[in-house]
């Protein structure tokens, strides 16, 4: 294309107080083109997005230098506009969608009103005309039954639908530029794939330029034409997507590519010897009672249905499935944090189900958990020493000097400075905190560790370091891991065996290579097809089948150790 760029950022610097978040950043985007801004947290990519929309001042930052030119013919420098002048452009010629579809819509306003107000403001439409236009806008983003949606509130829609509504709002006035700030990060893989496909189609239709902000190299490969790699506010590399994936020039881009788990690119872990499983789950079921209203009959909704699995010492079983499939309920039910309705859990030869509270307490020392949110799962008022040795204190009664010694040992084990024992959790980064959680789990020398989305909230390179650490500890101490994740590529990297969960049931289980490279169950195949691959345009989204209803599973052996729901 020989068009002039529609958005041109020239040596932009953004500062928060004395801290520089973005330094001397320049890029151009043309109509119909997608530029990805890639980097880990703290790289300045979101600060850039907010600066282009001039919302950065609201977040306490300021543009300290540079120009932001919008438009190819009569270009304006957005960096020079007042807030009042900027209002004409925002939501009109340049608009934005955000990461969290669950919280980005106003909870007390109907969808129709939230969508219609953009049209009324920028296009001067009457209430009635805005309504018609809003319905069309919803239809354009393929929201089923758009007329009814106008009357609904955000909480009545799923995450994927809400993100579609956000896209409809952003594109209502057919902007020249759409900024998408991690628009798919909070969504399930299959929904993620649908939203990316939708954005691509809408781009063809409307012809807007997209500034796509992400830390996910997979999404970059799917959608971007060119990439800007950022780190600590600096531009590390600018390249076409193809060139970047083929041969990244900067060392940071190479590290980033290496840290990104790619489906089918991880060396398989050798299977562990076939010994007696350390954790055996048989026919575990848990359902929750839900009532749709006062005096209406309660319905039992099965969250986990007849799940059986086992893990051998030193083995990692990857449990994969989308949000709401029952993964977390399963992990809580098997520790009896919630009481299962049926089934047996045998841990190290001892049946947990049916134990009295006191004995259960003792037995629980053998299973420890690491949770998703490293910020919420550490008590901010406790010192690291007390935090990470608390399970040992509760189960084994160690105290005083022993506790300090143990804390130092544990910190060393998770490759943190032993001198950190006196600090508080807020002094650590996300990855370091997740190591503290791991250290805490290790304090009672458990036989099994349940890691529930333990690296999902971390940057790719941090996540890679934490999973590597888990593997090292596993190989040294022979701990079994139940590794729960929605990210199949991470699962592939760390698991010996994989179990695929769908609507409360295990639909397929077997060795990692077999399940992920030769999936038998339709759902597994669909899940794998949705995974964005960091190879540009390797998979066509046209192939994703619609959701299907699966029959009740009764396990069927496909081959040795590989089962699917029949």
């Amino acid at each position, binding site marked *: 294309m020989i068009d002039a760029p529609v958005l041109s950022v020239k040596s932009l610097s953004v500062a928060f107080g004395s801290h520089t978040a973005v330094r001397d950043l320049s890029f151009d985007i043309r109509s119909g083109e997608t530029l990805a801004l890639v980097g880990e947290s703290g790289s300045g990519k979101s600060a850039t997005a907010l600066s282009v929309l001039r919302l950065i001042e609201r977040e306490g930052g300021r543009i300290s230098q540079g120009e932001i030119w919008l438009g190819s013919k009569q270009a304006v420098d957005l960096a020079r506009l007042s807030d009042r002048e900027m209002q004409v452009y925002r*939501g009109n010629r340049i608009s934005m969608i955000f990461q969290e579809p669950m919280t980005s819509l*106003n*909870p*007390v306003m109907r969808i129709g009103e939230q969508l219609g107000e953009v049209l009324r403001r*920028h296009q001067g439409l009457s209430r009635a005309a805005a309504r018609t236009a809003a319905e069309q806008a919803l239809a354009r983003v393929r929201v089923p039954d758009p007329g009814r949606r106008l009357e609904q509130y955000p909480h009545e829609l799923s995450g994927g639908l809400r993100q579609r509504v956000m896209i409809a709002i952003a594109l209502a006035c057919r902007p020249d530029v759409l900024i998408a700030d991690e628009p798919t990060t909070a969504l399930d893989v299959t929904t993620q794939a649908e939203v990316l496909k939708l954005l691509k189609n809408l781009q063809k239709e409307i012809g807007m330029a997209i500034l796509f902000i992400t830390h996910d190299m997979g999404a970059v490969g799917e959608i971007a034409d060119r990439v800007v790699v950022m780190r600590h506010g600096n531009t590390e590399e600018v390249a076409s997507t193809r060139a970047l994936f083929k041969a990244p020039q900067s060392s940071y881009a190479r590290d980033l590519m290496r840290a990104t788990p790619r489906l089918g690119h991880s060396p398989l872990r050798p299977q562990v010897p076939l010994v007696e499983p350390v954790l055996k789950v048989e026919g575990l079921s848990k359902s929750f009672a839900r009532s749709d209203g006062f005096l209406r009959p309660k319905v039992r909704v099965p969250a986990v249905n007849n799940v059986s699995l086992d893990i051998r010492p030193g083995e990692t079983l990857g449990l994969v499935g989308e949000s709401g499939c029952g993964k977390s309920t399963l992990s809580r039910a098997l520790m009896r944090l919630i009481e299962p309705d049926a089934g047996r859990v045998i841990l190290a030869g001892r049946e947990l189900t049916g134990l009295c509270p006191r004995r259960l307490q003792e037995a629980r020392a053998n299973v420890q958990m690491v949770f998703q949110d490293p910020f919420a799962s550490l008590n901010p008022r406790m010192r690291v020493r007390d935090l990470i040795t608390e399970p040992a204190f509760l189960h084994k009664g160690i105290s005083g000097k022993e506790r300090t010694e143990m804390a130092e040992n544990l910190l060393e084990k998770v490759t943190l400075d032993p001198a950190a024992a006196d600090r508080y959790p807020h002094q650590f980064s996300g990855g370091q905190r997740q190591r503290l959680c791991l250290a805490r789990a290790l304090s009672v020398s458990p036989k099994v560790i349940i890691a529930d989305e333990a690296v999902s909230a971390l940057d790719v390179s941090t996540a890679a370091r934490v999973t590597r650490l888990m593997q090292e500890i596993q190989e040294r101490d022979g701990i079994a891991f139940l590794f729960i994740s929605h990210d199949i590529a991470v699962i592939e990297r760390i698991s010996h065996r994989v179990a695929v969960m769908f609507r409360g049931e295990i639909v397929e289980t077997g060795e990692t290579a077999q399940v992920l490279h030769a999936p038998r169950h339709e759902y597994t195949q669909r899940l794998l097809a949705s995974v964005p691959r960091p190879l540009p345009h390797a998979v066509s989204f046209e192939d994703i089948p619609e959701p299907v209803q699966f029959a009740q599973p009764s396990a069927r052996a496909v081959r040795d150790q590989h089962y699917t729901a029949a």
Partner: protein
Amino acid sequence: MTLYVLRTLAKMALTLLTIITLVFFAARLSGSPLDTFLGDGLTEEDRALMIEYFGLERSVWHQYIAYLRGILDGNFGLSFMERRPVAEIVAERIGPSLQLLGSAIALTLAVSVPLGVVAALWRDSWVGSAVMALAFTGYAVPNFVIATFMVLIFAFVLNWLPVVGNGTALHFIMPTIAMSGVLIAALTRFTRNAMLDVLGQDFMRTARAKGLPETVVILKHGLRNAGVTVLSVLGLQIAGMAAAGNVVIEAIFSWPGIGELLVSAAIIRDYPVLQFGVIAVAFAVVTINALTDIAYVIADPRIRMAKG
């Protein structure tokens, strides 16, 4: 929704029965009415006559059952003092009380919501601090203190405002301010906190990204969300004011409302008036609470869903 309203009504009825029972027995614990308003010149004969006339010779339990029966028939008894139906007496007093309550609520909303929003928006500047300092001071000063000082300054020293009765619009000024003082302070704080909460939400950023002017962002998207929280607090506060505030304030300003009636009835032990007065206030409180609940459900669609 209908079921939700029905459930609320059932709760109201139960609350009222409890209050009727408590008031009935509490009044009788305070002593006999004959001692207070018949004076010393009473012969044994007169006394017996009076006891029979008021039905005081029967056991307390009999009286209680008879009283409940009466209520079911819509008969709340006769005033010992005035010898006419208490319903009639209370009815005369409801109007002035509601007028005072209404003007206090209006003043509260008109002052505290804008103040709260201002305090939230300018939280880091002296404006926000000044508003909050005022609010905390207002919260610490009881309404009768405000009332007394106002009477002293505006009525006795400056001679600008009338003190006794409810004859003119000028009569409303001091009681209204005295009644809403604490409420304004409390509601300003709640509005500020609710607003601060909302200001940090993602959807506010979305609203700005749409290109809406700041006033629309704050007043439409912000206040509407903060309003849900404020509403629930407002209901509780008004109920409290209806119950306690007006007794003191009406007594100070000789306002011919229910509060003032209750005080005098308690002093002369006019049981039927006292009982029915308390029931009327309790009814008002319970109604306000129920209305708040329902308004809350209407204001927040998420709760509407949950309650069906």
